[in-house]
Every structure is written in C-alpha cells, then in structure tokens.
C-alpha cells in the first residue's frame, strides 16, 4: 500500500473534500428547480456519474490502445480496472436514474426513451467484458482480447452518444447543449463542482483498485519465489500465473508446507 498507493492519500483526501463541497452546494446553494422541485437534486448526482462512467469506458479504450501498441501489460490492467469501475458507476447511474424517473415521470423505467435505453445497451455491452476476459486462460491472449474488446466498445460509446443526440423524440431532460442549456449560473457551478468531485472519486477508486491488483501480483511473485526457495519439496504446485486473474486477488491465501 505504501509503495503502490503513492499519492493515493492526498487524492483520496481531495476527492472526499470535493464530494463534501459538491453535496453542500447541491443542498444549500443550488436553487430549487421551478419545474421539478426538490427531485431535481438527483440531477447533480446522476448526470456527473453517467458522464464519468462513459468517459471511463472511453479512457479504458485509450489505455487498451496503449497496451496493444507497447505490449506493456500494465496498460491492460489499467484498462480493466477503468472498465470495472465504470460498470460499478453504471449500476449507480441506472439506480439513481430509475429513482429520478419514478419521481418525475411516475415510472421506474421508460423503454421508448433513447437516452435510458442507449445507456442500458452500453452498460450491458460492458457487462460482457469480465466473462469474456476470464474465459480465456492464456494470459497474453486474455490481455490482447480484452484490449480489442475495450477499444471496440470504447469507440461505440461516443458513437452511441451522438446517435442519441440526433434522435428526435426526447422526454429525458436535455440540460447540456452546445448553446449552454438553460441552467442558471448557480446551478451550473454546482453541476461543474459535482462533475469534478465525481471525476476525482473515480480516479481515487481507480488508483485504489490498481494498488490492490499490483499488491496481488507482487504477492504471487513472492509466493513463487518462496516455493522455489523451499526447494519445491512439499511446496504447493499451484503457482498462480503473473496475470490479472479474477480470483487471484480475492483468494490470495498462502498454503505453506508443513514441516519443511
């Protein structure tokens, strides 16, 4: 944690402060929306979360490109963690969006709304990433296939976003536009602070998970060294591969040989 989590503490502190400031602005500074009333406060949580999640998917695609270009597997790991975190934020987007939809429209979900359905499609697309990744045993092949998926799906995200923008039927509120939307200054400021806070939170959690993954990798390496040092007598034969395997970080418990 000390080695890999370098810079994590200040980042976590700044993310905590930013989230606290954003929440304070939402409830004590931003004016009540004339049309939706108090329910509109969900907007400051839901929209930044959706933007950051989608940006996370695109960023994962960029990291995957770097992996394929350089062959450096650490980029594949970064890409994987970004997608994992974006999926988690995606769950948050769907939950908060459904709550907002119920409060505003009287329905938890509206199937003929392009924004909702397109986000669900992107979310479900990325939900196929972990099973695809972990169905491949060979580490090199796993990383390459995962990167190809991340690039292809990452390119689909802005395309999908544009397609929704071009769609004609809107019931979903459109607050961000080329002309600046209809938000007054105080709402805009609150929204921007919320967006920055969400981006900081994402970066902090991304770094935290990367720290955990790197720690797991070092642990596997050390365990292998310890097995070799033990001369292979009674050492466990299940040397974990040096690759981001799903269970490795979770089930990283050494089984030392008895009596060696």
């Amino acid at each position, binding site marked *: *944690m000390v080695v890999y989590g370098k810079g994590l503490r200040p980042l976590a502190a700044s993310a905590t402060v930013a989230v606290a400031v954003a*929440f304070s602005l939402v409830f004590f500074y931003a004016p009540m*929306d004339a*049309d*939706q*009333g*108090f*329910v509109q*406060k*969900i907007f400051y*949580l*839901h929209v930044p*979360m959706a933007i950051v999640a989608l940006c996370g998917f695109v960023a994962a695609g960029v990291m995957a490109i770097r992996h394929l270009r350089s062959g450096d597997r650490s980029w594949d790991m970064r890409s994987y963690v970004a997608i994992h975190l974006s999926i*988690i934020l995606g*769950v*948050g987007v769907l*939950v*908060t969006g459904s*709550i*907002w939809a*119920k*409060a*505003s*429209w*009287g329905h938890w979900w509206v199937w003929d709304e392009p924004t909702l359905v397109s986000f669900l499609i992107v979310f479900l697309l990325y939900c196929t990433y972990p099973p695809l990744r972990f169905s491949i045993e060979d580490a090199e092949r796993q990383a390459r296939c995962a990167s190809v998926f991340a690039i292809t799906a990452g390119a689909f995200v802005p395309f999908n976003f544009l397609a929704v923008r071009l769609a004609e039927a809107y019931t979903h509120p459109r607050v961000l536009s080329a002309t600046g939307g209809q938000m007054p200054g105080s709402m805009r400021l609150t929204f921007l602070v919320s967006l920055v806070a969400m981006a900081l*939170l994402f970066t902090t*959690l991304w770094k*935290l*998970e990367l*720290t*955990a993954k790197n*720690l*797991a990798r*070092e*642990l596997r390496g*050390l*365990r292998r060294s*310890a097995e070799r*040092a*033990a001369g292979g007598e009674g050492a466990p034969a299940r040397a974990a591969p040096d690759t981001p395997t799903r269970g490795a*970080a*979770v089930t*990283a*418990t*050494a089984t*030392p*040989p008895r009596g*060696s």
Partner: protein
Amino acid sequence: MPALPLDEAGRYVAGAYVAFVMLVVFYVVIIGVKVSRMERELERLKQPGEHWRR
C-alpha cells in the same frame, strides 16, 4: 407531472444519494479488506524463511 411535495420528493432524493454512498462505501470496504489482507500476507512472506518454517 407537477413537482412533488417536499416530503415525498425528499424520500426519492434521499434514496438516490444513499444508494450512491452505499455503492461507494461497499466498494471501498471490499477493496480495503482485500488490500489489508494481502498486505499482512506480503509482510509475512517478506520475512525470509519465516513463512515456510511455520
């Protein structure tokens, strides 16, 4: 739909924010538990001979 009264809207807003906080807290706790467990094991493995003698 007309704007909901504050008491009713408050429940939805609280629900959304609590869901978000719970999501983040669960995530941090899970990763934190994993990291601390691995750190303990790492420290144990870094002590030469200690781990395998036991």
